[in-house]
């Protein structure tokens, strides 16, 4: 079959690892987003430290807090999934163990994210 793409187009953005600088860029992008988000939430957690069940739920139900907390969790999990991927690739050399751990890494991030965001939304939408 003829391929209309030029050789340059086919390799653009692809290193030998097949994803070029995508991983590097994404870990930087998420790290920058996490600086203001984590500082904001840290401040919020300090302000609700020792607060009662009702007070914490009322605070978590505020749109700004619920949004910031959800974004913080989702972006954190993306960032840490990328970071743990590097750690696994650096230290685990057996192909089977490596692929298994890389899968578990993604499952862990998705499970923690789903549980956390569901909890926030449940509180925010008054459940």
């Amino acid at each position: 079959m003829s391929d209309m793409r030029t050789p340059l187009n086919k390799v653009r953005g692809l290193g030998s690892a097949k994803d070029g600088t995508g991983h590097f860029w994404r870990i930087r992008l998420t790290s920058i987003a996490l600086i203001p988000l984590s500082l904001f939430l840290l401040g919020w957690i300090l302000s609700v430290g020792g607060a009662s069940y009702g007070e914490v739920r009322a605070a978590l139900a505020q749109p700004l807090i619920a949004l910031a907390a959800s974004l913080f969790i989702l972006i954190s999990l993306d960032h840490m999934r990328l970071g743990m991927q590097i750690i696994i690739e650096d230290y685990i050399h057996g192909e089977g163990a490596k692929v298994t751990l890389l899968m578990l890494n993604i499952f862990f991030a998705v499970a923690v994210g789903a549980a956390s965001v569901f909890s926030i939304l449940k509180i925010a939408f008054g459940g």
Partner: protein
Amino acid sequence: MSHSPATRPHARPLSPHLTVYRWPATMLMSILHRITGGALYFGTLLVAWWLIAAATSENAFNLANQVLGSWVGLIVLVGYTWAMMLHMLGGVRHLIWDTGTGLEKDTSTQLAWATLAGSIVLTVLIWAGYLWLGA
């Protein structure tokens, strides 16, 4: 399988490896950056647990707060704070390096010590602020 004299393995001098170097600050901070990243990874379980508890019931929430407020829990939370500050400042250090600056030997060593010192100062400030706010 026996080795011929020419290929028999025997103790040859090895180039110095990780274990014989006095740790430079940059190496220490590189290792700490990875370790704190790994710790923060599993620390998300605590965040998820606290949120699930808040969404479940008052009893579950009080239990979570009780555990996190115990002395073991507080040690973990102070450690969590420190890990977060160190990893954040370490990340900023990486972002500075990404611009191609701060890579000289002296500067990178100073940045490494600044990251460690900054993380400790921020952790102390955060917990002092927490106590001051009267938790």
